């Protein structure tokens, strides 16, 4: 009897938890659902109707939006090029530095590591003005260099990778040295393959940051040809005016690649964030 009542109460409790969680899920994803449906409505319907589903599904809105922003393909190409180059840079500089900090002995190691970490505490805004002046000095304004090179090293990635490299047993290195390997060979043939999860996480978070960057590209580009997608969308907001369905179609186009990447690789995103969180917390 008692057991039965407990079971019913348990079941009820579980149901309640799921209901609350579902409310949270709706709060989190409803804006996207609503965005996609509105992007398929006609101008009149998008502006005036509050029903969720369009009466007429106008897939042509996407074509119109794409054509209206003549530089859309360019925005995409720019963003992909910038994000990929940044990721490559971060991985190369990060792996090398992280390895040295994790596995090598040299004077000033701890001080340099602290210096590296301290760059994470500096608000981005402080370096904004000097970096902008530097870009002008280098003649990089409105060039890809300005959008890529300052971001090809990240203290965060060095930190993340170092934590991971340290968990690789020292004895593996002894074995490699016995086989006549040097640091670089050991790093490339043993450490990198073993650290794939940390490298993927690092790459994904860098890619995401680069894809979604706004303030910096806004500042250092001044022609549509050089702009990445976020700045492009921001300027399209003004161009599209009241044509909200076109605007939402354009936004949908700009977020779909990231959503797909996220859904396919969500484990790496989430685990990465969680790991860094735990490390930072303890």
């Amino acid at each position, binding site marked *: 009897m008692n057991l039965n009542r407990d079971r019913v109460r348990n079941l009820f409790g579980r149901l309640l938890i799921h209901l609350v*969680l579902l409310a*949270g*899920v709706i709060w*989190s*994803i409803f*804006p*996207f659902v*609503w*965005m996609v449906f*509105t992007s398929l409505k006609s101008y009149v319907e998008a502006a*005036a109707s*509050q029903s969720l589903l369009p009466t007429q599904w106008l897939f042509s809105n996407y074509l119109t939006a794409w054509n209206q922003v003549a530089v859309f393909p360019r925005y995409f190409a720019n963003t992909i090029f910038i994000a990929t180059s940044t990721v490559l840079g971060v991985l190369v500089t990060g792996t*090398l*530095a992280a390895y*040295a900090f994790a596995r*090598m*002995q*040299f004077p000033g*190691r701890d001080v*340099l590591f602290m210096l*590296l970490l301290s760059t994470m*505490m500096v*608000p*981005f*805004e*402080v*370096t*904004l*003005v*000097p*970096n902008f*002046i*530097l870009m002008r000095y280098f003649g990089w304004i409105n060039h890809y260099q300005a959008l890529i*090179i300052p971001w090809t*090293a990240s203290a965060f990635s*060095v930190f993340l990778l170092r934590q991971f490299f340290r968990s690789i047993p*020292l*004895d*593996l290195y*002894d*074995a490699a040295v016995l086989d006549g390997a040097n*640091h670089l060979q050991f790093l490339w043939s043993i450490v990198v393959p073993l650290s794939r999860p940390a490298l993927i996480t690092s790459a994904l978070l860098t890619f995401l940051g680069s894809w*979604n960057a*706004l*303030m910096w590209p806004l*500042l250092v580009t001044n022609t549509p040809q050089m702009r990445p997608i976020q700045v492009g969308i*921001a300027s399209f*907001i003004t161009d599209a005016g009241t044509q909200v369905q076109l605007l*939402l179609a354009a*936004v949908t186009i700009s*977020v779909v690649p*990231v959503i797909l990447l996220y*859904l396919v690789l*969500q484990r790496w*995103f*989430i685990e990465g*964030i*969680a790991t860094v*969180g735990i490390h930072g*917390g303890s």
Partner: protein
Amino acid sequence: MAESVPPIQKIRTLEVDRPRHVSGRQRKIEWTAYLFILPAFVILGVFHIFPVIYAIFISLESGPINKFSFVGLQNYSAALTNPVFWSSLGTTFVYALLTMPFTIVLGLFFAYLLFQGVRGQDKYRVAFFLPYVISTVGSSVVWAWIFDPSNGLANFILERFGVQPLRWLIEPTGIFQIFARQAGGSLPTWAQGPSVALIAIAIFTIWQSMGYDVVIFLAGLTNIPGELYEAARIDGANAAQLFRYITIPLLAPTTFFVIVISVIASLQSFNQIFAMNTAAAQTLGGPLESTNTLTVYMFNQLYTYSNYGYASTIAVLLSIVILAFTLINFKVLGRQTED
């Protein structure tokens, strides 16, 4: 690759017993290490470390970019005597107070529910984290439309509950003042509360960053040994007691981390405000400067007015504020977590 694995593992097990310090490898200085860290340090040095020092120099200068002239602390005294500086500092704090507590509490709430071993935990987590992945510019367009005064979803919901519609992103009036007005009265300036526009942006920010806290808290919760809960349950502890006496103290390091990160992030936030202002066709920091936080103020000085020295001054002052709060966090909360 598969062939080379067994010998390595063999060596590894053989070497486990060998005392490590005997090898002497640990103490040898490896000068090549500097070559390894060189690329990262060149980039970080030029674009992230040097600019901090340079920023302090610029903050002591004035004039156009090629003709800086040294003005000493003039920018600082100009900022500290400018009411706009103080009001934007106030807006920065209000914005932090409007976003941070809600994000953290909601994040912990949902993480704790997920921690109850619900089926489909992974799928819930993916959904909660989604807003964090999407660009601020993209989702701000959607949210600006939700907050549209005439056709938006937000007012549609308010009307359902019999509340008068608001003008949201284009409403510079304080929220309390709005209520007072509806009741036929008026409030003194200090009691008018944060502007409705700032609240709308805060709601957007909470929506965007909640998933991050859910993920971090869930990871922290998963680290708490399950036996502790079992033991307490056997002793007859109820759900509230479990939360109070096991979850809260053992989650303290994670909570501390989340608070430190959130304080820094919310004092620095720019993208949400910029994107929502743009999407609602407002001037940056508008309407009527009611969303003019320090970062927005700084960006305007830089981008619109090209006041490099003054913009740098604001950035330096903002860093001092952030640093102060981070230190306070470490002093007050950090000590508590250690106990």
